[in-house]
C-alpha cells in the first residue's frame, strides 16, 4: 500500500470517525438522560450475526448490521407482547442468542474485526454513505431532542403539550439502531455502548446545563474517535480499542474537573 493510499484511508477513516463519534456522543446524551445509556450494548451484540455475514460474503458490515438490529428489536417487541416479561430480560435472551449464532459460522480470523471493529479497509462510497447517515442522525436527533427531554420529564406533560410520544420514540429508536449499525464498523459489536455512553457521562460531569451537555457529548465523541484513529495510524493497535481508551481517559479527567 503506497503512502497516497494510506493517506486516503486515513482521511476516510477520520471523516467516518468524526461523524460517527459525534452522532453517537450527541445521541448518547439523550440516551443517558432517558436512562438508556447501555441500550446500545445489547443492540451492538445483535449486529454480530449481520457483521459475520458481511465479513463472510464481503459486503459492508453496517449493511449487515442494520437489518439485524431491526430484526432484534422486532423479536424483543414480539416476545414482550407474547410473554409480558420485562424488556431488559428479553433483550438478554435475544442478544445472547445473536452472539451464539454468530460464532456458529463466523470464520475464526474474522472474529476480532467483528468484535472490536476494523477501519483499515474502508471505501469512499461506504464513508460517504456513513457521513450522510450520521448527518441525518444529527439533524433528526436535534429535532427530537426537546420533545424527548420533555417525554423523559413527564410523558403526560409532553402529550398534553401536543408531543406525539409514539412518533418521537420511534424516531429516537430508529436513530439509535442506525447509530449502532454505523458504530460497529469503528468499534465492533462489543463496544458500541461505549461509543455513546462514555462521551455522555464525561459531558454530564463537565456541563452545567442541557445545551452544554448535548454539544459537549458530540464534541467528546468526535474527539475520541479522531484521537483513536490517529493512534491507530501510528501504532497499528485497533482503532476501536484506542477510541474507547481515549474516551475513558476523558471521562477519568472529567471526574477531577467535575462541575
Amino acid at each position, binding site marked *: 500500500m503506497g503512502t497516497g493510499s494510506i493517506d486516503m484511508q486515513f482521511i476516510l477513516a477520520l471523516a467516518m470517525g468524526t461523524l460517527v463519534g459525534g452522532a453517537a456522543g450527541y445521541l448518547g446524551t439523550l440516551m443517558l*438522560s432517558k436512562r438508556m445509556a447501555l441500550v446500545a450494548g445489547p443492540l451492538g451484540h445483535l449486529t454480530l450475526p449481520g457483521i459475520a455475514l458481511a465479513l463472510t460474503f464481503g459486503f459492508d458490515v453496517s449493511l449487515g448490521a442494520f437489518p439485524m438490529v431491526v430484526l432484534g428489536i422486532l423479536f424483543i417487541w414480539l416476545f414482550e407482547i407474547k410473554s409480558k416479561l420485562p424488556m431488559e430480560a428479553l433483550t438478554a435472551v435475544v442478544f445472547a442468542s445473536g452472539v451464539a449464532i454468530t460464532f456458529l459460522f463466523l470464520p475464526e480470523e474474522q472474529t476480532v474485526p467483528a468484535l472490536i471493529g476494523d477501519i483499515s479497509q474502508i471505501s469512499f462510497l461506504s464513508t460517504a454513505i456513513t457521513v450522510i447517515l450520521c448527518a441525518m442522525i444529527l439533524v433528526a436527533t436535534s429535532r427530537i431532542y426537546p420533545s424527548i*427531554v420533555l417525554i423523559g*420529564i413527564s410523558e403526560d406533560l409532553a402529550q*398534553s403539550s401536543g408531543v406525539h410520544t409514539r412518533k418521537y420514540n420511534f424516531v429516537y429508536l430508529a436513530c439509535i439502531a442506525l447509530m449502532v449499525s454505523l458504530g460497529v464498523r469503528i468499534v465492533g459489536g462489543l463496544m458500541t455502548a461505549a461509543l455513546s455512553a462514555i462521551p455522555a457521562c464525561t459531558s454530564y460531569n463537565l456541563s452545567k*446545563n442541557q445545551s452544554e451537555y448535548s454539544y459537549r457529548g458530540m464534541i467528546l465523541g468526535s474527539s475520541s474517535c479522531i484521537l483513536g484513529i490517529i493512534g491507530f495510524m501510528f501504532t497499528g493497535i485497533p482503532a476501536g480499542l484506542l477510541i474507547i481508551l481515549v474516551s475513558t481517559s476523558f471521562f477519568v479527567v472529567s471526574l477531577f474537573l467535575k462541575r
Partner: protein
Amino acid sequence: MIILGPNGAGKSPLLKALLGLVPYSGEVSWVTKDISYLPPQELFQRRDVLLNVGEFFKLKNASQEKASGILKRVGLSSSMLQKSFGSLSTGQFQRMIIAWALVDEPSVLLFDEPTSGIDVGGQDTVYSLLHDFWEHSNLTILLVTHDLNIVWEHADNVLCVNKKQVCCGPPKKVLAPESLEELYGTGVKYYVHGHRKY
C-alpha cells in the same frame, strides 16, 4: 372548579380523558384549544436531568423575558432561569411548573394534585397563586384534589366523583353532609371558616 373524591374515584383519569390522553366513551368538547395541564408532582421524572429552568421554558418556545415575567408573578426571581431543574426545592419546583404551564397564557388549566408533597405553608402559597391567576388572568382552572378544606376558600364550583358523578355545583349548594358521605363512604364533618380573604 375543584374535582373532589376519594382515592381511586377516577379524578385523574377524568382530567386525562378531557385532554384525550386516555380512551373514553362519550363526548368531550372544548370552546378553546388553549389548554394547559400539569400532572401531580410525583409523576415528574428525571429531575436530575441537566436542564436548567430557562431551557425548560424554551421547550415551550417561551422567550427569556416572558419566562422572567411569569416567574416573577409566581414569586420567583429571574435568576431562577439559570438554576438547574433538579436543584429546586419542592415548593420552588411547583411554583416554577405553574409558571411554565401559564407562560403561553392558556384559557384553561387542568391541574392534578397541585400540592402533593408540599408542606402546609407551601400549599397555601400554591393555592393563593392559582387563586390570583384565576381572578386576574381570565383563567379557568379545573383542579383535582383530596383536600376538602380548599373547596370553600377557592372554588366556584365543585364536582364530586366516585366512579360516577356524585354532585356538581357551587360548594354551598352541593356539599351537604349526605353527599360527602356518599362520596367518601363514611361520615365526613366540616366547618366553614368565614375569615379567609384573598
